[in-house]
């Protein structure tokens, strides 16, 4: 009997501890989604790296908090925020109208247009007529879906869980092009000489306010205006003290704050 009772007691204690841990003071719970190099990377020792992660740490420092990271699949990242599993998403999430129906955003912390990447000799243009019947890969639940629907409506859109899978199918020849964010797209081209030789962006930088919005921002739940103000102040501080520029230069050799 004693055993059973102590089991109940420890189970109850554990549940209280779990509940309490989630609301610890001085902690900002940050969601990321690794597997999006060079922004969100899972290191071999289980730690997280990449531009988003280092940027998040800069933000937390300037809010006098410590970041507590949750690595979650992209598809589950907004539901998790809405269910209060974490406080913010710092995972290169584009600010657009569709997402703003569900969540709130900080000011953009970097701006990246999109690019259509295809075989160098593909010979089509990045507009509605040019992409008619072409198979174009996008990461699902992203702004690129919106862009294709609006500007390349006759293309055969293929949706992937992440852009990495879209690249694989581009290499395999199953799709004609991928529509991706320009910066990680360039990184992908650079990552392997074979990529740079076979593929290139076939469009100028693509912009669309309705789809891509104004850049990538920190997502938070609606109605948390105090947190939003703190985040915006922290972003400004990283600009003023030069830490942002150092980070951006280290990763991309240029300032991506204002593309």
């Amino acid at each position: 009997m004693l055993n059973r009772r102590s089991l109940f007691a420890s189970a109850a204690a554990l549940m209280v501890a779990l509940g309490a841990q989630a609301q610890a003071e001085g902690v900002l719970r940050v969601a990321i989604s690794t597997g999006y190099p060079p922004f969100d990377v899972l290191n071999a020792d289980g730690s997280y790296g990449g531009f988003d992660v280092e940027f998040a740490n800069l933000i937390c420092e300037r809010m006098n908090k410590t970041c507590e990271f949750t690595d979650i699949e992209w598809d589950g990242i907004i539901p998790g925020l809405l269910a209060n599993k974490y406080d913010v998403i710092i995972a290169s999430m584009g600010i657009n109208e569709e997402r703003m129906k569900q969540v709130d955003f900080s000011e953009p912390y970097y701006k990246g247009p999109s690019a259509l990447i295809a075989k160098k000799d593909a010979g089509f243009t990045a507009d509605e007529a040019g992409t008619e019947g072409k198979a174009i890969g996008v990461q699902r639940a992203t702004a690129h879906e919106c862009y294709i629907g609006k500007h390349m409506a006759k293309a055969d859109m293929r949706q992937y869980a992440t852009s990495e899978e879209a690249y694989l199918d581009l290499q395999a020849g199953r799709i004609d092009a991928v529509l991706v964010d320009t910066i990680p797209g360039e990184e992908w081209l650079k990552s392997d000489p074979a990529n740079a030789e076979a593929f290139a962006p076939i469009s100028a930088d693509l912009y669309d306010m309705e789809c891509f919005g104004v850049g990538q921002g920190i997502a938070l739940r609606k109605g948390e205006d105090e947190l939003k103000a703190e985040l915006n102040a922290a972003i400004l501080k990283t600009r003023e003290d030069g830490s942002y520029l150092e980070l951006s230069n280290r990763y991309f050799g240029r300032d991506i704050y204002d593309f």
Partner: protein
Amino acid sequence: MADLWEYRWLLLQGTGMTLLLGITGLVLSLLIGLAGSAARIGGGPIARRIAGGYTTFVRSVPDLCMMLLLFFGGQTLMNKLGAWTGWWEYVEVNAFAAGVITIAFIFGAYMTESFRGAYTSIPKGQFEAAQSLGLTRSQMFRHVTFPQLMGYALPSIGVNWMVLLKTTALVSVLGLHDLVFFGVSAGRSTRNPFAFLIAIMVIYLILTALSDLVLRALERRYTKGRMLRT
């Protein structure tokens, strides 16, 4: 290959999570299965209908759908309930618990059907013999019904286990870090996805081969006394 070696501890950690989820899920689903089949066979009309409805419903809904509903929907419901009653501000629905409960809930339905099928395979004479020996209900369950039930149910439990083990991969959408989550994320992070996918496959193969050995040993044990019928 160098990448794989570098990430070996993470892959091992993920394998541990996969096994932990799988085994906890298996034990719970077996318990649900026993209770469910008991209700379906020996329960009153209402218990029978509930158990029957449960297995029909669960087996026809996609696992992923159920998992997302329970985890995210459950959390949102808890938060709303807390805000409405003012009893709590935020209670975390633990990801591991949500994963295990969903897996047990789903596979409990399959196990119910496994046990029910196995029960009907036990020759009627066995129960009559037990009764005529004057065994109590619990003695009959322990010495006559259960050993033979396991003998007949094991092949189907084995199949369920293998599917269950692979279903654990779905928990990565809940933020739990199992073998598939670590493998896929590492593959994307190092831009070397195929090496990691093959590694995941090999590890699952090893796990499956090992469980096959255990299952065969169990089957030998539980079918020892089975009469050969011609």
